């Protein structure tokens, strides 16, 4: 498929942003005893990937939702639900499936719960005709409550021993596994978007819902699936979160939805729907990841980090508008 010059340029722009942040990180990197830049050490670079993966996986689902001209504020709470369900099944259920079977069951239960949350979001949006912002605001609050209720407000520790919970945490926090999961899901989402009937419909509905209605597209079904996928991907992020933190914390993932939205937006996805890409979101995720890493290596205060993130978001979106404007002013 040929891609015209303007679109290539648009792609390059977010990659360019990543390159700039990367260069800054290299320049400002503290040096180790041997004089090497700590930022460039393999261990650090892969750490960035692992840390970015959680938000990244959520941002993939968020990208589908935003492309569909929606928004999902419930992903942070959904992540907490996944983390707590995983931990509960691992620590409180007895099975005779063996460790692998038990872990599989826990992950499956968590993912099913999260997909159900997404499906409920989607169903409420299409059948009650309430704006996605409001529906997912409600589930953001409600699912947080559910996660806390399930665990009676406590963290469920997974431990560091030989039991099934510890094995899960050890395996699930493996750097390679986490990064491979993120990469695989990104490729799957990109393929869905670019190569499937479903993906084309997601974009078309987000671009112009009324036109999609007149074109006879199955708007309701498509939309329910979009939110289900977003819930499912938040579930994956929640399972990873539980493993990496060795606990199922019902208060995990607070304000992660904003990071996921930020990653998508920095990557060039328009909140108006219809325009954006998975590749852009991956780049957006990495920009945020490298920024966080650079600031932490330099011991920059975490509040300053937040302020810098704000600047990055505005700058990234502003730069993307520069390329839009000549098109908008075109004669009719």
């Amino acid at each position, binding site marked *: 498929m040929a891609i015209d010059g303007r679109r290539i340029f648009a792609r390059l722009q977010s990659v360019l942003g990543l390159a700039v942040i990367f260069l800054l990180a290299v320049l400002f990197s503290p040096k180790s005893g041997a004089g090497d830049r700590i930022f460039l050490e393999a261990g650090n670079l892969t750490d960035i990937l692992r840390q970015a993966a959680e938000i990244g996986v959520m941002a993939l689902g968020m990208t589908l939702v935003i492309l569909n001209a929606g928004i999902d504020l419930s992903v942070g709470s959904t992540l907490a639900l996944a983390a707590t369900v995983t931990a509960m099944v691992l620590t409180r259920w007895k099975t005779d499936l063996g460790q692998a079977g038990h872990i599989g069951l826990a992950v499956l239960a968590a993912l099913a719960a999260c997909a159900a949350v997404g499906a409920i979001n989607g169903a409420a949006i299409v059948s009650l005709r309430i704006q996605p912002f409001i529906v997912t605001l409600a589930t953001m609050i409600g699912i947080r409550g559910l996660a806390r209720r399930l665990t009676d407000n406590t963290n469920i520790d997974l431990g560091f021993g030989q039991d099934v919970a510890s094995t899960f945490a050890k395996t699930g926090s493996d750097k390679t596994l986490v990064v491979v999961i993120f990469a695989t899901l990104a490729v799957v989402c990109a393929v869905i978007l670019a190569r499937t*009937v479903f993906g084309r419909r997601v974009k078309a509905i987000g671009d112009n819902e009324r*036109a*999609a209605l*007149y*074109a*006879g597209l199955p708007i309701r079904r498509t939309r329910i699936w979009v939110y289900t996928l977003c819930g499912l991907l938040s579930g994956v992020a929640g399972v990873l979160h539980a493993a990496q933190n060795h606990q199922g914390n019902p208060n995990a993932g607070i304000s992660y939805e904003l990071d996921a939205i930020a990653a998508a937006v920095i990557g060039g996805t328009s909140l108006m729907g219809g325009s954006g890409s998975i590749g852009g979101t991956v780049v957006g995720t990495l920009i945020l990841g490298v920024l966080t890493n650079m600031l932490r290596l330099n011991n920059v205060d975490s509040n300053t980090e937040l302020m810098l993130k704000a600047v990055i978001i505005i700058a990234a979106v502003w730069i993307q508008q520069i390329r839009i404007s000549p098109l908008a002013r075109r004669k009719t």
Partner: protein
Amino acid sequence: MLTVLLTARKISKHFDGTQALRDVDLEIEAGTVHALVGENGAGKSTLSKIIAGVVQPDSGELAWDGKPVVLRDPVEAQRLGVGIIFQELDVFPHLSVADNLTIGSLGAERGAFLNPRGMQSFCEPLLGEVGLRVPPGRLVSELSIAQMQLVLIARALGMNARLLIMDEPTSALSDDNAETLFRLIAQLKQKGVAILYVSHKMDEIFRLSDRITVLRDGAHIGTVLTSETDMNRIIAMMVGRDLDAGSGRAASTNQQVLLRVAGLSSRKLVNVNFQLHAGEVLGIAGLVGSGRSSLGAALFGLDPTVRGRIELRGLSYQPRSPGHAIDSGIGLLPEDRKTMGLMMQMSVQDNATISILDRLQSFGFLRTGAAHGQADEIHRRLRVKTAGADALISTLSGGNQQKVLLARWLLVNPEVMILDDPTRGIDIGAKYDIYQVIRDLSGAGKGVILISSELPELLQCCDRILVLHEGEQTGILDRAEATQERIMALATRTESLADPGH
């Protein structure tokens, strides 16, 4: 003698690589109507915007009253006396009529505060002048499109406009509202106001204008006195080729009934009855608000309040949704391609194939080669001008966008095709191409329902014309008995026929 108000000399302008205007000259005299015509993309809008100070030319000169001027922004143009009324009426819908009139006019402001009495005395004469009888305190969002347009004309007059640029002013007006506008234009002309009238509608241009300037591909093809030319010459200048109007098509002789509608009623329709035969083109005429578009929407499953009997090839059909209508064999080209038709951020090909993705897939994956082949062939047939199937639809002209939408429906290939104002606001070449598609569809035995606001178009294309008045069917005219006068009489209900069923 007439004095030249505005002179444009050797105006050129380009936008990212495309030359929108090349050395264009234009002279507008006070107290005349100067029509600016050309196909979409010919540069009419760009030239209008340059004269209104919205767009700055790359080169060339403007003179006002014989003195050279440079218009850096719209405010400078307004100070000189240039008013522009865009097609997409840029009113402030949530403000009152008075607020809309006084925005930008210093007379009614005192420092940063508004002066209500001043506003009142400022507005009333203006509203009188354009013949708009609404209280100045009324919110503009409560007005009709025609009234909004009058507000904009009044606003321009309030700024002492001596040149009014009107871009497709009748595109959203019913015939009687258009009449009101034409009378207003005549009055303004009497007062010495010059009007630059940008339009596709030949009958209006020949009725209103004193001179006609034709642009094609950004170049000035010629300026002629309206009294010394005719429509065919202007069209030939616009498109650079002769067109087959396709009039006098053979009446359909096929008697197979595709669609039978009996007692169709809804929120907006009362007891509509008709039959559509294979190969027939049935026109739907009526004023704005007559239920023209509602009839199309009802058949296409967009109106849940529909009652009555509909049969499609003898089988009962209860339209539930557009998806259901399409599956049953009914298609609808909607009246507004931007809001109801196109996905503006998607490519030409994606827009053309979006309704037939199910046919282009295996296991949910799109076969891009198949999509390409289908779209390419149909675009060639429709003569769509595009940089390629992957070009964004937003880069196409209105006429070509409309052709892509039509291509979408030709790919779906429904038995009954409803076209709702398919030629609105598109250039004349594309218009004739669409008439050809209508002929092809009927030739292939499809049933076509053509909803249109243009009576000549209906008379030219249709076998029969159904006329609606306030949702009620006032008659069906055969090709032989249909005239503009009779259709208007039925549409305004000054005549009614005995047998509405036919």
